[in-house]
């Protein structure tokens, strides 16, 4: 373990790489801090920029963007009552009231410290747990990988969006779109309509930029004229008192554990984690009535949980090749684009890359703390002065450049337009987009593994049910689907009863 960490450190602790990480963290913070822009957007937009880097360095930079993007959301949550990212929603509950009382600096300081500690704990857990989990998943064969793909799709489809069926529709559509182009095994051309640009298949990143970035630009253009109202004109002291932090130790540990646990689950992530941690902190508090009035416990719980998610979400992504949320789906796409096959084999074939990613995350966490504590708050007030009418077209310009630079193909730009239209239509009619992206990522992996399995067994499907890991995964998939249906039914009937009452 130590020698591997040193290998990773050797790659990361180079002046240029540290500079890249600093830049990545800073850009992530900017994207996280501007309401409407997210960590996902930052990762998708800047993924093409990492093409020229070594995979280990490129992935570390993407990790830095992720850390920054998740952490930056707290600044507008506290200063404007507008969460910069969905994972900072619970931060507004106490952060904004505390800022309104004249203590925005205090709210930010303890928010930043909690983010740092939560992130650190999550990353330590990642370094300790991921190699152990990879040892188990190394025993997986193509049978398990196919079922794992189905498991990932069904879980994410059933936990994102309002309807399980619509989530599954979205995921299946993604799987089908991924079959366009050359067949990975036989080379046969499929569903190209005779169009040459489609023969190479749909480039994952092009679909992602269209579905997430351009769709988000259209959505944001709806409220282009909105003005930001700050909670307080002045910034109070940013002094961090360790005596105060000491009183939050239990809260920090509990919330970080919640973030880590939820981060590991496919489909969960920062949005759920910060709510659950906030709720738990309130439940165990001796003064639950003070929650929502500007209590530090609320800020600490929400912020430590959403940053601990970062480490947790990496675990299934790199050990199984199943992303925990949209951001890690982009990270997975990053790995694939850099020519690295995700999964437990990474721990054998690409050990340097894995530990460089880990060390990169730790360094980015330190940069996140330093940047937010020093320049970010002032930069944020300046960044918000950039009008959205200028910002949104710039994002489109960058998206076009990013799309073109993947294959140097103008045809890909037309595919981008198709996905932008599809993404907007689906998103605005209630279909979640994350399952679609996951379908695009997992579809080819599932197909390869299913067909390899069928070749090996001569078409016999019984090994799926006789191999213990495979059977376990099938049971897990069916159980999680039924559980989600059941919970959804219970929740809806409860709401109906309340409404009737």
């Amino acid at each position, binding site marked *: 373990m130590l020698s591997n960490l040193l290998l990773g450190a050797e790659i990361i602790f180079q002046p240029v790489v540290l500079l890249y990480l600093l830049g990545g963290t800073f850009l992530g913070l900017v994207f996280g801090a501007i309401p409407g822009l997210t960590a996902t957007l930052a990762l998708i937009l800047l993924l093409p920029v990492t093409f020229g880097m070594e995979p280990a360095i490129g992935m570390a930079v993407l990790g830095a963007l992720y850390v920054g993007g998740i952490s930056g959301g707290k600044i507008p949550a506290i200063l404007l009552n507008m969460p910069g990212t969905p994972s900072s929603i619970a931060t507004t509950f106490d952060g904004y009231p505390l800022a309104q009382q004249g203590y925005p600096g205090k709210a930010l300081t303890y928010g930043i410290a909690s983010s740092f500690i939560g992130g650190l704990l999550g990353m330590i857990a990642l370094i300790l747990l991921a190699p152990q989990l990879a040892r188990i998943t190394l025993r997986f064969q193509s049978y398990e990988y196919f079922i794992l793909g189905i498991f990932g799709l069904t879980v994410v489809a059933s936990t994102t969006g309002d309807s399980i069926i619509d989530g599954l529709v979205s995921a299946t559509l993604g799987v*089908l779109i991924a*079959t366009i182009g050359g067949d990975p095994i036989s080379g046969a051309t499929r569903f190209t309509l005779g169009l040459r640009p489609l023969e190479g298949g749909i480039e994952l990143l092009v679909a992602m930029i269209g579905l997430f970035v351009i769709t988000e630009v259209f959505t944001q253009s709806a409220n282009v004229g909105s003005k930001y109202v700050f909670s307080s004109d002045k910034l109070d002291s940013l002094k961090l008192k360790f005596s105060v932090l000491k009183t939050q130790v239990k809260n920090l540990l509990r919330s970080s554990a919640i973030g880590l646990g939820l981060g590991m689950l496919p489909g969960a992530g920062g949005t759920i984690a910060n709510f659950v941690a906030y709720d738990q902190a309130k439940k165990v508090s001796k003064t639950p009535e003070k929650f929502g009035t500007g209590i530090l416990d609320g800020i600490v719980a929400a912020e430590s949980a959403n940053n601990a998610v970062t480490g947790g979400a990496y675990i299934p992504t790199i050990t199984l090749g199943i992303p925990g949320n949209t951001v890690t789906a982009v990270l997975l796409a990053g790995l694939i684009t850099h020519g690295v096959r995700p999964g437990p084999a990474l721990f054998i074939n690409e050990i340097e890359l894995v530990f460089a990613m880990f060390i990169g995350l730790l360094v980015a966490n330190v940069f996140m703390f330093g940047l937010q504590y020093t320049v970010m708050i002032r930069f944020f007030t300046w960044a918000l002065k950039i009008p959205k009418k*200028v910002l949104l077209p710039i994002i489109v310009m960058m998206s076009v450049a990013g799309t073109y630079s993947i294959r140097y193909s103008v045809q890909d730009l037309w595919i981008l337009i198709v996905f*932008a239209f599809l993404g907007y239509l689906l998103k605005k009619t209630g279909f979640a987009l994350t399952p679609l992206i996951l379908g695009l990522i997992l579809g080819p992996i599932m197909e390869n593994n299913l067909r390899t399995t069928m070749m090996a067994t001569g078409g016999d499907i019984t090994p799926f049910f006789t191999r213990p890991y495979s059977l376990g995964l099938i049971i897990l998939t069916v159980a999680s689907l039924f559980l989600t249906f059941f919970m959804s039914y219970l929740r809806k009937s409860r709401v109906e009863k309340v409404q009737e009452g």
Partner: protein
Amino acid sequence: MLKNKNFLVKNLVNISIILIGVFFLVSSFSVSPGFQQVVGADQYPRWFAIILIALAIASIIKDIFNYKRGKFTEELPIIKEMRQVGPRILTLFGLLILNVFLIPYIGYFEAGFVFLALAIFALGERNIKGFLAALGYSALITLAIYIVFSQIMNIYLPPGIIL
């Protein structure tokens, strides 16, 4: 049911998804299965096309149930946004298409300048002052993007008449 716009739009999307599924299903029969394949290149998408069609039909049935239980009262975001800011979103979409169309003819930066100027103008104040400001912004941004992308990061982008 058909008078309810929300229900109608949601199910038009579902029907479009069914049609996509039908396209994949029908087209899969003209795909070569590949040499000595147990599950051929044609079968995998065929099964997923069938699943997609079944799920989209299930989604329609679910929506009919929801409609009958009076749950289709909330306005769909697409209808709400099109009603409130439809022209703005459609203009932006149209400008994106124009940008992509122009790139092979006049280059990335030149097409980008045109896109930025028109998009900033369309999203901001629509008067002479707003237009001049949009031109100024777009010139500065295009120059900045040119320096960062082409000069610093060496990213190849379609060359044009000037840059």
